[in-house]
Every structure is written in structure tokens, then in C-alpha cells.
């Protein structure tokens, strides 16, 4: 192990094989979203508690300049910066160069050739593909729906992949996507879902965090049998309508980041998690839907083996 006494702004070189004592976390959204951002932070804090690191957090970073500021401010005091949210990537590209002693890990494709800049990210659309395959089989009406939040990349990727998954098994299935305009507007998510149901959709992929209860409400009030997928976390107990979720645990990924940092093994190439590590991302089914487990496993394997190629864009 190298010099352990790396203090703030000190001499730690990137990838020094000691546990960082100070980690800064930047989140593009709220730290308590019960989903993506929260699990990022949980991951860091879990390791931090074990290893005795201090963690500084800046969240709700919603403009480019705020992203630069957050990264710069944290870089001044910390050795490792972990940024959750693809909108922070371009800020990472510029700030990393100014702090060669600090290691930056971004969640999106970064500029190559910068020694202290790395990518660890999830491809959030891929589990939605598997969900699409299940949805097409589950749907009795031949019509399924996608209720999106805002026009952000993981949203559009999930939308495209969900539709592609469904069409891959039933080309004639109708997939309609609606964007609510907010991830936390539960009232409007409810109306959007009600609209989907009114149009005959009986399986819905809801890309909603704080807005999910609105979606489930709409299902309940419709009185129809409608199944819902949600992203990220296990919320199966919230409603019997939930059929499964695109499990994502960035905590594990963040754990990997810290391990790799310690072992001085942060890769130069972007490290993407699709479905290859089920502890990071997977399509999981809620209890009582085991009949689809085989389909899920098969599709997941096909994707991992490259037998299925994912659609582009998003």
C-alpha cells in the first residue's frame, strides 16, 4: 500500500491503492428519490461507514454551471469524486483536467485519455427490454404502455428498449409512450396512466420515482387488471398491480468503484453494467409472477451472449 497519509489536496496520485479518506458525491437529482440517486449515495455511505471515510454530498445539480461548481467545490476537498447522473458528464470532462490529483468517476461516456477520469454506468434501458418481452406476453389486450417522466436519457432509452422487447416477441403489439413532464408529479402521472388504461393498455412500464404512487392509484381506480413495471427498486409490496421492476442497485456498482480505486484498477475504458452483473441490474419479478421467470432468464442470457442486439438511441 502506498502513502496512506493523503490529506486534503495532498499528494495522493490517482489510483493510489489506499482507501480514499474523503469522497465527494454529486447527484443530478434529489438524494432521497428512493431510486437512482439515493442508491448511489447509499452505496458510498455503506462503504464509508465500513472504511471510515468522510462523505460530502451535493445534490439537485440541475444546471451545467451548477455541475461545474459542485465538482470543483468537492474536488478541492476530496480525493475521489463520484457523480451520479449523465448530465454531469460534460462537467466532469472539464473539471477533471484541472484536478489531476483527484479521481473522477462519472456515470456516462467521458472523454478518453484523461488519466483521472473514469466511467461506471448502468445501461438503464436493457432491463426494460426484458420487461417489454414479459409485457407482450402478459398483455391480453395487445396494447401496452410506457409512462415516462421527463425527457432525460435513461427515460428515452427505457422507452425505446421496452417497445423493442415487446415487438421482438409480438410484432403486432401496440406500444404507446407518454411523457408526463416530471418525475415527481404524482397527480399527473396518475392522469397519464389513466389515459393509457382508457386506451386499452393493460401492462405499463412506469418510469416514475416519486410519481409511482400516482400510477398505482390510477390502476386501482380503473378497477381493471393492469400490470405495472417500475424502475430501480423493489416496491412490490406497494400494490398487487406491480408485476416486476427493473432492478438497479448502484450501491454494488459504487462498491466496485471503491474496490477498484483501492486496487488501483479503475479502467480507462467506460465500464457499463447492462444485465451482466445481476447484483447491479436485472429485471426482477414481483412475487406471484414466477411463470415469467424462465422468459426473463432466457432473454437475459440472450442479451448477455449477444444473441439479442439492443436498439440504438434514446
Amino acid at each position, binding site marked *: 500500500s502506498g502513502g496512506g497519509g493523503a490529506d486534503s489536496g495532498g499528494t495522493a496520485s490517482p489510483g493510489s491503492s489506499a482507501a480514499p479518506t474523503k469522497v465527494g458525491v454529486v447527484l443530478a437529482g434529489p438524494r432521497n428519490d428512493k431510486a437512482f440517486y439515493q442508491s448511489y449515495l447509499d452505496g458510498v455511505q455503506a462503504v464509508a461507514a465500513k472504511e471510515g471515510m468522510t462523505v460530502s454530498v451535493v445534490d439537485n445539480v440541475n444546471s451545467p454551471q451548477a455541475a461545474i461548481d459542485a465538482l470543483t467545490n468537492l474536488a478541492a476537498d476530496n480525493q475521489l469524486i463520484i457523480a451520479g447522473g449523465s448530465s454531469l458528464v460534460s462537467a466532469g470532462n472539464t473539471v477533471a483536467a484541472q484536478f489531476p490529483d483527484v479521481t473522477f468517476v462519472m456515470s456516462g461516456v467521458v472523454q478518453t485519455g484523461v488519466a483521472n477520469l473514469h466511467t461506471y454506468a448502468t445501461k438503464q434501458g436493457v432491463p426494460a427490454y426484458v420487461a417489454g418481452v414479459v409485457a407482450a406476453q402478459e398483455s391480453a389486450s395487445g396494447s401496452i404502455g410506457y409512462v415516462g417522466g421527463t*425527457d432525460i436519457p435513461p427515460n428515452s432509452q427505457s422507452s425505446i428498449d421496452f417497445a423493442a422487447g415487446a415487438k421482438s416477441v409480438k410484432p403486432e403489439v401496440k406500444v404507446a409512450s407518454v411523457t408526463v413532464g*416530471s418525475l415527481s408529479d404524482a397527480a399527473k402521472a396518475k392522469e397519464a396512466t389513466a389515459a393509457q388504461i*382508457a386506451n386499452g393498455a393493460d401492462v405499463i412500464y412506469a418510469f416514475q420515482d*416519486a410519481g409511482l404512487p400516482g400510477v398505482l392509484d390510477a390502476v386501482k381506480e380503473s378497477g381493471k387488471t393492469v400490470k405495472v413495471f417500475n424502475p430501480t427498486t423493489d416496491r412490490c409490496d406497494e400494490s398487487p398491480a406491480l408485476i416486476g421492476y427493473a432492478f438497479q442497485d448502484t450501491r454494488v456498482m459504487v462498491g466496485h468503484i471503491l474496490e477498484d480505486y483501492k486496487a488501483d484498477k479503475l479502467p480507462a475504458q467506460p465500464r457499463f453494467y447492462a444485465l451482466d452483473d445481476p447484483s447491479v441490474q436485472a429485471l426482477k419479478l414481483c412475487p406471484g409472477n414466477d411463470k415469467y421467470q424462465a422468459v426473463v432468464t432466457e432473454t437475459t442470457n440472450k442479451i448477455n451472449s449477444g444473441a439479442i442486439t439492443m436498439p440504438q438511441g434514446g
Partner: protein
Amino acid sequence: MNPFDVALFAAAIRLSVPLLLAALGELISERGGVINIGLEGMMLFGAYGAFITAWATGSVSLGLAAGITLGLLTASIMALVSVTLRGDQIVVGVALNLLAAGVTMFLYRLQFQGTQPTTVRMEPYAVPLLSDIPGIGPVLFDQLPLVYFAYVLGPVVAYMLFRTRGGLRVRSAGEKPEVLDSTGVNVVRVQWSGVLAAGGLAGLAGAFLSVGQVGLFAENMTAGRGFLALAAVVFGQWRPYGVVAACLVFGFTDALQLRLQSMGEVPREVWISLVVVGVLVAAAGVWRARRSGSPLRWMLLGAMLCVVAGGLGTALLPSFVLPSQFWLSLPYVLSLIALATSARGVRAPAMVGRPLPSRG
């Protein structure tokens, strides 16, 4: 497939109601000469206050009361700084939005540490007999009690503004406060009451979102409805029934766009109704031009566009999807068009955006 069904209209009403509550309050405030950019913040505070109270007490009505109270408190800041202290209305409003976003976020996190609990919420109440009317019954009369309140609010506000002394005072505070001053009425107090009305109703609108519709709170859950309500006041041209109509139009387009998006492609019925709307707009334009000499050509242009787009759509049925941002900005575009094509007499109350003169 026909999107124009009962569900659509019911959704339109539900989407209109929070707008209606906030916009009618804002109408009173603006008629009194204070524009309230902080409406969004007042709604957010209202939503938060209602949720936290309902969560703590398990009572929806206490929640609603708390929502109103928080709206009133926020409005007091607005009134204190912009009316009593003659601060710039825009700046105060912007600051209040920041304040609401910041404080609700801070407190909510402090309390719930990353969880998102749900709580009791208002139950729909089917009005006996009325809700049995086939067709409109279930749409209009099987709703949350607050929706019924919103139904009567428009006429109530109209009555208050035009038939009561208080209304006269509010309007004169917004047009020519010197007059009010000379009659011995405290103009500052009148403007305060306008702002408070806006705050209380905005708080209620926020409460409608949190404990009325979903029984939970989420950071920034008002999602721009305050600005939409501001636009509705403009679109409604500062008249109570105009504002009601504007909110219904916004609610309807919102419901329709959600519906159309979830249909994937735009069905033939929609194109046909676009033609119908075009014809109606043209007719209304001709009628209005007769009456008030408002510029006809813009109306006709808009109507022509509707007819042409509708006709082409009917004939070709392109399965195209408009970006969500188009729908999100539509209410603002509509408001601007309404203002630009309206008769010249339509204007904001003279004092909107301006501080009261101080007396010698």
C-alpha cells in the same frame, strides 16, 4: 379509436381543478394590482403543509386547513415585501419560489430521511341523483369534494369582484389606488387581502395535489402548475369566467395530449375535431369582429391553420408524435395567441408589476 370519452372529460376536470383554484386566487391578486410569480411556491408550500399535517393527524380536512394556512403565510411574505415595503413584485415572487423549493425540500428530508410515505387522502363523493345522470353524471358529479368547490368558485369570485364593495376596492387598487386612498380606504390592506386570497387558494390547490389526489408529497410536485395558473389568468384576460374557461382549456388540452400520446398515433377523430374547432374559431372571430372590431385576420389565420392541418390529417393519417415539450409549452403559446388576437381594450390591470405610490 375515439379518444373523446367519459374518461377524457373526467381527467380534464381533475387536471383543471388545481389550476382553477390557484388561477382564481391569482385573478383577485392581479385585479388588486399584484402579480404573484410566487404562485408556484405558494402551491408547493400548501402541498407540503397539507401532506405533513394529514400524515401527522390522519385527517384530510386538517390537512386542507394546513395547506391553506401555509399558503396564507407565504402570501403574507409576498404582501409584506411587495405591498407594504414596495419591493419589486417579480423579484419577490421569484424569491418565494426559491424559498418554497428550498424549505420544503429541507424539511421533508429532515423528517423522512429518504423515505416517501403515503397518507390518507380525500375520497370522491358521488352527488346523489346528479351522479346518476347518464353521460355527464359520472364525469361531473362523482369527484372529490374539492372539485365541487372549484365549480362554484368561479361564480363566487365573479360575484365578489363585481358585486361587492370589497370587489370594487380590489379592482380600484389595481387600476387607480389614489382613488381608493381618497375615499379613506387603506390601499395597502386591500392589496394585502388580494394577495392573501391568492395565497390561500394556491395553498388549497397545492393541498388538492398532495392530500386530494395522491396522498403523498414529492419535492417540486407542483411541477410548474403555478406558472400555468398565471398563464390562465392572462389567457382568461383578467375576467373570472375567462379564467375558468382558460383553466378548462388547459386541463382539456393536457388530458387530451396525455391521451393522444398514449394512443401512439393521432386518430382520425382528432383531426376531424380540429377541423370543427377551426370552423368554430372562424365563426367566433367573425362574431367578435362584428361586435368589438378586434382584428379578424389573426382569427381567420388560426382557423385556416386548424382546418388545413385537420384536413390533411384526416386525409393522410400520419402516425407522427409531437415532442413532450410541445405539449408542455402549449398553454403558454395559447395564452400569447389569445392576447395577441384579442381586442385592444384587453389589458392587464394598470398597477400590475408596479409598487404603490407612497403618500406625501
